[in-house]
């Protein structure tokens, strides 16, 4: 079982470039999330989605955009990358309301912005 798959796993960008991270889940989960992980700061929620066609802001949404056009996919976009966006990005998913709340994570996408 694939679970949650993130692509690409590694990417190096120059300041001002744009890119999209793709998250795909095959568990038919309703909710999907994008987190960033930085040393000493844990996992911070960027954006999330509670269903196809919906998105909402998390704790640190500035500089990012997201789209959930299909239930199984959640895209994270950087329109104009900045060095402060150098981080490891994790996608997660879970079943909908009434579930235990367990998040299933991908293996991460390491982004470096020069």
């Amino acid at each position, binding site marked *: 079982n694939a679970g*949650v798959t993130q692509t690409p796993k590694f990417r190096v960008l120059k300041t001002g470039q744009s890119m999209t991270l793709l998250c795909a889940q095959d568990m038919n989960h309703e*909710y999907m*999330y994008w*987190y960033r992980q930085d040393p*000493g*700061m*844990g*996992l*911070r*929620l960027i954006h*999330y989605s*509670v269903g196809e066609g919906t998105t*909402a802001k*998390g*704790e640190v949404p500035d500089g990012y955009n997201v789209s959930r056009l299909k239930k199984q996919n959640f895209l994270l976009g950087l329109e104009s990358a900045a060095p402060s966006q150098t981080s490891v990005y*994790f996608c*997660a998913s879970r079943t909908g*309301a*009434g*579930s*235990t*709340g*367990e*998040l299933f*994570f*991908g*293996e*991460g996408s390491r982004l470096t912005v020069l």
Partner: protein
Amino acid sequence: QQQVKQSPQSLIVQKGGISIINCAYENTAFDYFPWYQQFPGKGPALLIAIRPDVSEKKEGRFTISFNKSAKQFSLHIMDSQPGDSATYFCAAQAGGFKTIFGAGTRLFVKA
């Protein structure tokens, strides 16, 4: 503003010892408190979780202690093993949508 405060940042424990990680929260609307374990190069995975209507939950060598009045909860790893060396995150969830994580604790168990 960190809604879930976790300590210590790092922890070194001898094999066979007890590892203790503490977390505190402020939002009384939180209703689900999971702990996640993360190995290098991998995503976090659920280890154990508790709801605020119980004071303790044990699964094997892992125990969560929960103090609702103090708004604190902790993870105890009994008989710690080198294979337990990982980063541990406490977290809290309210309303079923968002999970907020602590800053993480890097645990190293010496053989």
